């Protein structure tokens, strides 16, 4: 199934949770919604699921408007951040719930429901937990139960709200790989919310970066990382070095860094140059950067430079010649991306 969102708007009091948000998700995609807390990720999921309502805008699933379709008829599987498992039901009953509440004509037989629940639990690798209660199993296991419960209704769209938020790092890593694999095997269309950029970049087909209720950029992880559309996306996606500059006549120049001028299509005026730490090169000759410290432990040596009045971290390629602390060196900023400061 495919999902189409057009110009969604919603306010909580004076703050806009969704501020003219549009997005389209093709069938079979695994899309990550990435953004800082309060950027509207969870609100967006809840609006799509039908638990909250946008003040304006349209939601279409396979071209069908969801405007008058209540949550229970949308056929969307939602995995809640804190799982929201039914605490008074066994794991098996939790998973069977979505089938048991179907109207009599559409409901499978009791035996078929039980078989389906067990099948899903086996698929999740937790078949032996069927008769336990949610409070008797671990966080990672609850996560799988929540997922099995959502999948039992054969949802056309699977929504996951911070699916790994409450888990420790090791469980998280394993579940990521497992979930991505499950998505591909079952031919699902999934949207998952996260504030962890590594998680988003590692798992998703495409990543939508949200800020203040708007989508800043939707792209594949590699393009998003290589070509962020603005400074926010650049800085949110990973460690960034930020230098102020001024654009005039199609070139950016830096205060206190003479001899560096970078051609840019950016409009004239104050601008920001952003680089990843590994994109800054160290030139052999003397120059404006002062070497403050050198940490050679780890695969890539990490150098701290005093440059243009600020401390800048640089990752050198493996095996590169190390500078001496106290040296003055030239820097190669040619890989910088220039964004207008306005």
């Amino acid at each position, binding site marked *: 199934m495919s999902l189409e969102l057009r110009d969604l708007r919603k306010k909580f009091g004076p703050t806009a949770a969704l501020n003219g948000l549009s997005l389209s998700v093709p069938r079979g995609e695994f899309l990550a919604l990435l953004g800082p807390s309060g950027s509207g990720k969870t609100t967006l999921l809840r609006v799509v699921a039908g638990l909250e309502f946008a003040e304006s805008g349209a939601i279409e699933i396979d071209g069908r408007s969801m405007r008058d379709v209540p949550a229970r008829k949308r056929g969307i599987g939602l995995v809640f951040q804190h799982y929201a498992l039914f605490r008074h039901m066994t794991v098996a009953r939790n998973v069977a*719930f979505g089938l048991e509440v179907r109207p009599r004509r559409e409901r499978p037989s009791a035996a078929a429901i039980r078989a389906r629940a067990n099948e899903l639990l086996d698929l999740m690798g937790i078949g032996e937990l069927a008769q336990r209660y949610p409070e008797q199993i671990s966080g990672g296991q609850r996560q799988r139960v929540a997922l099995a419960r*959502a999948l039992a209704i054969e949802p056309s769209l699977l929504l996951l709200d911070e699916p790994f938020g409450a888990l420790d790092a090791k469980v998280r890593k394993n579940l990521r790989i497992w979930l991505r694999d499950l998505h591909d095997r079952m031919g699902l269309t999934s949207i998952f919310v996260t504030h962890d950029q590594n998680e988003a970049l590692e798992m998703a087909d495409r990543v939508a970066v949200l800020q203040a209720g708007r989508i800043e950029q939707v792209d594949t992880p590699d393009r998003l990382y290589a070509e962020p559309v603005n400074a926010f996306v650049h800085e949110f996606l990973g460690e960034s070095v930020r230098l102020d500059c001024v654009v005039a006549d199609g070139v950016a120049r830096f205060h206190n860094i003479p001899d560096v001028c970078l051609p840019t299509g950016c409009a004239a005026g104050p601008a920001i140059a952003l680089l990843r730490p590994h994109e800054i090169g160290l030139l052999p000759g003397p120059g404006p950067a002062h070497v403050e410290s050198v940490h050679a432990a780890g695969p890539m040596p990490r150098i701290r430079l005093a440059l243009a009045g600020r401390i800048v971290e640089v990752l050198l390629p493996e095996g590169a010649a190390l500078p001496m602390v106290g040296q003055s060196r030239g820097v190669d900023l040619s890989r910088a991306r220039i964004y207008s400061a306005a």
Partner: protein
Amino acid sequence: MTRLRRGALIALTLVMMTLLLLPLGVIFTQAFARGWGAVLEALTDPEAVDAIRLTLMVAAVSVPLNAICGTAAAWCIGRFQFPGRALLMTLIELPFSVSPVISGLVWVLLFGANGWFGPWLDHHGIRVIFALPGLILATVFVTFPFVARSLIPLMREQGAGEEEAALTLGANGWQTFLRVTLPNIRWALLYGVLLCNARAMGEFGAVAVVSGHIRGQTLTMPLYVEALFNDYDWVGAFSVAALLSLLALVTLGLRFALERRMGSSRRDIV
């Protein structure tokens, strides 16, 4: 110092035990002053049977009514944020802060012969005050807070997550309530109902105002105890009082069991 403190505690406990147990002891000794036969006779007196039946009837109507309304009110307050929520909380507790006599009197002022709706009701031959409807109204008002109060903190703590999950899984409102909401609150609900029932059967002040004290017709058990007492029928008064006390003891026992259950397990074992 510790010895002094221990002594004080023991003394305090003794005083409290005396204050609580002595009256209870008196009730039973007075009731059985002339043996089992007299107690049985007092309890099978037609007027006593009428009083017991009336009390059960009042409770049978007001307790379910308050269980339903109290659950609905607790659900609104516990699950949603809306303007006037704090005010609604205060209103629910109103019957606790108002003297029961006032709680009875408002109904007289509304439905009594000289009340706002009195003439209209009289014209249509409907009796509210000095009749069963009045007793029920007064009891419902006085006992309203019990269920809502025992549910609100729990429902607020549990949040709406499970209900929302049920909705996304295709359950309708009624299925969500029966399969998710109700099982999660059942012990607290039972606890509230228990307290509500104890008060409904034991209420005196509010009921006294609207009763009119018509023997065999509008005397509930507590009112009947008073009537017998005023007639110097000690054995009769204390026999009915003993029956009421038994209800209190049963309530106390159940309450203790429920509190242990609610405290020991958040999951609610079947």
